[in-house]
Structures are given as structure tokens and as C-alpha cells.
């Protein structure tokens, strides 16, 4: 152990705060200069924490989802009857769906329809709600990729019902999904049966708002909102939500995805996806270009 004189030690202890302050300001500057540095550090930290979060989030979910084994036993027979009835109904719908699919295939064949590229997808468990004070995102555990984890960047995240967000950071074990409610989220959407274009803008609240719709055709209450291929960031036709007019009479989107309690997300990587979410090269980059990437 090095013995230092008392005045020197005092001077040293007085100096540490300004020195660390300068160091931190340097970090801010470095973060501004190299925007990928913080993304890299963040995905490294996420990768480190993801297994630990998975260990603790399992029991939490078990507690949330079950009211105890005994409580379930009483409801079992009732639930069984309900499920049987539901099953019968669903089988009827399955027949309808198969008939419609056959019809659809026949119509597509006669139209020379070009099918959209099939995305690769991986399913991951949401292990942590790592959103910040001004950001809405979740951490998803992904199976260890055999290739470059960066291929997952920009992948579209859906839960069972609809669009949840897209991947902004990807590590070898975890991916961070920026939700559609985040204040930096901008998603081109198509509204209703005619596919009226609009922009869905997150506001950190539960329901993202709709902007830039055509004034002559305002979005109708209850109209379906789907993603649009404009800007090339999303595949067209993914279900997003339903139009609703809020108390201020502004159109907002009620998301189909259960964003407040996400458990499992599927991450679809479309072959066309570009890692930096830039406009597709064969299209002219637009000034009002669509960005869904976290703005730095």
C-alpha cells in the first residue's frame, strides 16, 4: 500500500470530482461523435444482463399468470366445456379459411400475383422492460445467432395480435425492441380498406397518434390500421391497430399488440431489410423520409 502525505491526499480527493466531471463530459462528446458506441455498449450490457433477467422474470411471470394450482382445479371442468365449444366453432372457421385460401390462390394465380418475400423469424421471450424515462423499449432474449447478430437489426417485432415495434440494438443473446409508442417512432401506415396513407407517431403514451392523413379523407373511427411499404422500412399489410378519436378529437391508434404486458415477441427479418433503415437505394430518398430508428 502506498502511503501518501495528508495534504497530498486531500488535494487528490478534491481533484477527483472535477476530473471525473471532465471525463463524463468527454463521454457525452464521444457519444455525440460516435453514435454507434453507445449502441454497442448498450447491447453488450443487455447481453450480459439478459440471462440474469431471464432467471428472475420466470418466477414473476409464474406468479402473474396463475392464481395457484388449487384455484385452477375448481375452474377446470367449466373451462374444458368452454374450450370444447370454442374448438367446435374454430373448426368451422378453419373450413371457411381453407375454402377462402383456395379461392385466393386461384385468383392470385390468374392475376400473376408476385408473392412478397417470406421473412425469417425467431421467437424470443421479453425478459425486461428496460424502457427509459423518455423511451419505450423492451429487451428480448433471442436464440444465439449462427451468423452476424446485426442481421437482426431492423427486424419487425410482432406479438400474437399485431405490430409491437422493431429491433434497434442486437447482441448475440439479446435484442432491444423500440416500441411503436416511443416518442421517436415514426411508422408509415395505411388506413382502412382503401389504404389511405398516414404516419403513426409515438408519443410515449399508450396510444400513438396519426399525422399527415389526407384532409379530404380523415381516418374513420374503428378503421383498421396496417403497415405500409412506403419508405421501404416495413412489409405492407401487418396489422397495427384500430383508429380511435380521443377526448381532444385527435385520431389515435389503439394498438392491437398488448404493449403494456409483452411476453413473447416474434422478430421477422425481411430479406429486403437494410441495417441502417435508410431508404431503399432504387427509390429516391425523400425529405420526409420515414425513420423509425432511435434518433440520437
Amino acid at each position, binding site marked *: 500500500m502506498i502511503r501518501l502525505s495528508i495534504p497530498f491526499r486531500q488535494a487528490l480527493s478534491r481533484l477527483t470530482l472535477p476530473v471525473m466531471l471532465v471525463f463524463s463530459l468527454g463521454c457525452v462528446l464521444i457519444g455525440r461523435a460516435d453514435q454507434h458506441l453507445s449502441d454497442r455498449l448498450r447491447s453488450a450490457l443487455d447481453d450480459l444482463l439478459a440471462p440474469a433477467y431471464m432467471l428472475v*422474470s420466470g418466477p414473476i411471470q409464474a406468479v402473474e399468470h396463475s392464481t395457484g394450482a388449487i384455484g385452477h382445479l375448481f375452474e377446470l371442468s367449466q373451462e374444458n366445456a368452454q374450450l370444447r365449444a370454442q374448438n367446435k366453432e374454430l373448426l368451422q372457421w378453419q373450413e371457411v379459411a381453407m375454402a377462402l385460401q383456395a379461392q385466393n390462390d386461384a385468383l392470385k394465380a390468374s392475376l400473376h400475383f408476385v408473392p412478397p418475400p417470406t421473412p425469417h423469424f425467431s421467437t424470443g421471450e421479453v425478459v425486461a422492460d428496460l424502457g427509459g*424515462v423518455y423511451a419505450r423499449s423492451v429487451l428480448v432474449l433471442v436464440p444465439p445467432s449462427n451468423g452476424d447478430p446485426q442481421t437482426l437489426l431492423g427486424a419487425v417485432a410482432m406479438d400474437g395480435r399485431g405490430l409491437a415495434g422493431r429491433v434497434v440494438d442486437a447482441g448475440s443473446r439479446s435484442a432491444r425492441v423500440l416500441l411503436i409508442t416511443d416518442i421517436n417512432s415514426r411508422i408509415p401506415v395505411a388506413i382502412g380498406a382503401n389504404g389511405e396513407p398516414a404516419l403513426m407517431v409515438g408519443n410515449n403514451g399508450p396510444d400513438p397518434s396519426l399525422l399527415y392523413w389526407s384532409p379530404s379523407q380523415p381516418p374513420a373511427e374503428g378503421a383498421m390500421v396496417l403497415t405500409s411499404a412506403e419508405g421501404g422500412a416495413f412489409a405492407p399489410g401487418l396489422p397495427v391497430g384500430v383508429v380511435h378519436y380521443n377526448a381532444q378529437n385527435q385520431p389515435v391508434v389503439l394498438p392491437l399488440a398488448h404493449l403494456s404486458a409483452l411476453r413473447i415477441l416474434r422478430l421477422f427479418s425481411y430479406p429486403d431489410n437494410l441495417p441502417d433503415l435508410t431508404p431503399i437505394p432504387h427509390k429516391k430518398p425523400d425529405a420526409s423520409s420515414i425513420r423509425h430508428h432511435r434518433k440520437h
Partner: protein
Amino acid sequence: MARAPVLRRPATGWRRLDAASRRLFPLAALIFGLFVIGMPFGIPGQAALRPVYAMGCVYFWSLYRPASLPAPIVALCGLLLDLADLSPLGIWAVLLLLLQGATWLLRRKLVPARFLLVWACFVLLVAVWSILAWAAEAALTETWLPLTPPLLETLLAAGLYPALAALLIRAHRGPAAVEMA
């Protein structure tokens, strides 16, 4: 170590280990708390809890045991907070260090003061610091951010500081007391 107290008992290996663990306790508790707040409990306003918790820890330890949370450790915690909180890198490191500096300046007045005054001072500091964080983040991301989070953070600070202080005072007298090693 720069601050080796004059010990009456000989410094055996176990006692050194004990002292080191006591010295590390505030840091470990701070990082563990940040980790726990990241779990998906689904509490509304859970993200706003993270900076309030970090500020509470920095404030308390800088007030009552400044040696246990030196500036480099505070800077490290600030960087961790930035990475977990999705804020631009370094903002919280700067803010937490400034908070530590402000607390050091207020130490002489606050340490002998009544708890109510210490509490009120913390709430005031959180109000100012959350506004600073809001301004810094809005400037660095060049977007107008909603003003509700600073308000929520201040309310959380007002409501949670007594509970946090009760826990930290217990730690201050027990597992973080280096002189008891």
C-alpha cells in the same frame, strides 16, 4: 487505499475482507437496485424510479458517508444509468457528479439538520436535476420531450425518500460501516 484508519486490532485477512465488503456495499446496493428496477414488474412509472433511486443513493451516501461513494464510482453508476435508461451516453454521469458536488457543498448545513429538512432538500434537488436531465436530453436528441417525467420523478422522490432513507440508515449503521470491521 488512501483512507486507512488507524486500527487498534491487527489487520488480519478476514478483517480486511470485511472492511472491503463494507466499503463496497453502497456501490453494490446501488447497482443491484438499478438491476431490480429493470425487471418487468409492469408498475406504471417504473422507468422514472431508476434515476430517482440513483439520485437518492448518491445524495444519502455523499451526505453521511462521502468516502463510500467516491466520484469515479458515481461516474460509473451514471454511465450504467445512461445505458439502462436509453438516454444519450454521459448525461447522467455528469448530472450525478454535479449532484454529488452540490451535496458536498450542502453537507455542513444538512448533516446536523432535522430529517424533514434533509427530505425537502432532496425533493428540491430532484426537481432541479430532473428538469436539467429533461433539458439536456431534449437538447441532445433535438426533440421536444413531454414534461410529465420530471414531475413524476419529483413526486416519486417526495414519496419514496423516507423509505429509502430508512433502508440506507440501517445500512449506514450496519453493513456499510467500515469502522466496525
